[in-house]
């Protein structure tokens, strides 16, 4: 039986990827952020998962406003790296896990989550930056990846509560898969940031701290945060944090925090990395 062994929440700031790709992680600006990633990389390397389910949003890379899937799952053998407007990131192609991905797609749809299915799509920084953050710069990614995209680009995104329930349905689907696989699930995006308008640059450390604490203390309470509250309190793009609820919903109620890193600023954003151990959380 497949099992979800850990949840990882990670910001996916594009500038973090650029800093790695250009070899700038040791500069005074970036070093405090990257230093905090090292213990997490060691922990994940020891865990040796077979598959990562990565919940992220596409940023006008694979999908445009022509078609806006609210929830989508990628079932391909592999996913090329997108050109987002400045050339593709120089990182390895992302290997898929099609047998499990198709099982998830079927199980989720019959469980009343109407997933869009993607047989072919490039992946952008929303997915590759969390991989880089947690795996460094290997020649090939150490595990297969199932991308799950959530729309946060056209308002409204799905609610936090709906995202949490999707996570619960992912957990049920994983539990019914016949292969013995160790799986990690990533929720990406956030934390507080605003990229647009006169209010650009908004950061709310208090909101972020309570959100990080709530992931273990009372995750259900966090699912009741409205979109307006996210945007008002954590910046217009802080609403990306709904994607963390998919990850949290896929874990057991007693998942424990094993690592936390929080740093301001990464470009315009409060960057966080949180690891939750799910191995004895049922």
């Amino acid at each position, binding site marked *: 039986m497949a099992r979800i062994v850990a949840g990882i929440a990670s910001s996916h700031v594009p500038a973090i990827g650029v800093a790695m790709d250009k070899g700038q992680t040791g500069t005074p600006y970036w070093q405090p952020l990257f230093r905090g990633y090292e213990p997490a990389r060691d922990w994940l390397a020891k865990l040796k998962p077979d598959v990562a389910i990565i919940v992220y949003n596409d940023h006008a890379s694979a999908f445009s*406003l022509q078609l806006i899937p609210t929830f989508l799952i990628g079932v391909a053998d592999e996913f090329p790296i997108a050109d987002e*407007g400045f050339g593709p990131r120089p990182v390895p192609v992302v290997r898929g896990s099609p047998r499990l991905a198709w099982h998830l797609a079927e199980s989720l749809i019959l469980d009343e989550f109407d997933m869009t299915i993607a047989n072919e799509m490039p992946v952008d920084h929303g997915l590759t930056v969390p991989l880089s953050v947690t795996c460094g710069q290997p020649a090939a990614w150490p595990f297969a990846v199932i991308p799950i995209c959530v729309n946060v680009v056209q308002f409204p995104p799905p609610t936090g509560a709906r995202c949490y329930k999707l996570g619960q349905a992912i957990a049920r689907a994983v539990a019914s898969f016949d292969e013995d696989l160790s799986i990690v699930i990533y929720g990406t995006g956030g934390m*507080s940031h*605003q990229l647009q308008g*006169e*209010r650009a*640059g*908004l*950061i709310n450390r208090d909101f972020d701290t309570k959100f990080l604490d709530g992931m273990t203390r009372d995750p259900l309470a966090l699912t009741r945060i409205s979109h307006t509250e996210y945007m008002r309190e954590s910046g217009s793009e802080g609403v990306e944090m709904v994607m963390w609820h998919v990850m949290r919903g896929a874990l057991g109620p007693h998942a424990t925090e094993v690592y936390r890193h929080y740093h301001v*600023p990464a470009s315009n954003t409060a960057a966080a990395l949180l690891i939750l151990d799910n191995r004895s959380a049922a």
Partner: protein
Amino acid sequence: MSGPPDYESIPGTYVYDARRGRIGYRLNMFCMSLNKAENRASFKADPAAYVDRFALTAEQRRAVLERDWLGMLKVGGNIYYTIKIAFCDGLTFQDVAGMMSGVPKETYARMMLAGGRSPDGNRYKSGTLPEVERGTPSTAPEAGVVPGSPGVTS
């Protein structure tokens, strides 16, 4: 829906909702085209001619050609899309954020290094009342933060 959405009371923020989606589609699809290297080359070689392939409104066209980043948002630009014009120009997200917030690049960078823009005084537009907010669970603004306090206005 009746009345303006409750997030309209957030200052300096342009939520890409249905209203903006209805006016911004062509502008954003022009931006999307810049994901292709050959289109970036065409846009750089003759910006006006390239933009004219996309049937933008006069104001959208002006905002793009003049790199009026804030103006683009006001005529339906979505930041995840308009940023691709900036990438084409060799600018970063932080460069553009600084320009939209109306301060020099160095001032904006210093603000971010000092912990970013505080939400205090930046939650509500001047003259909007938190009490009229609809659909938001019980997070009241902190004591001392009153409508009209200094901060971003729009």
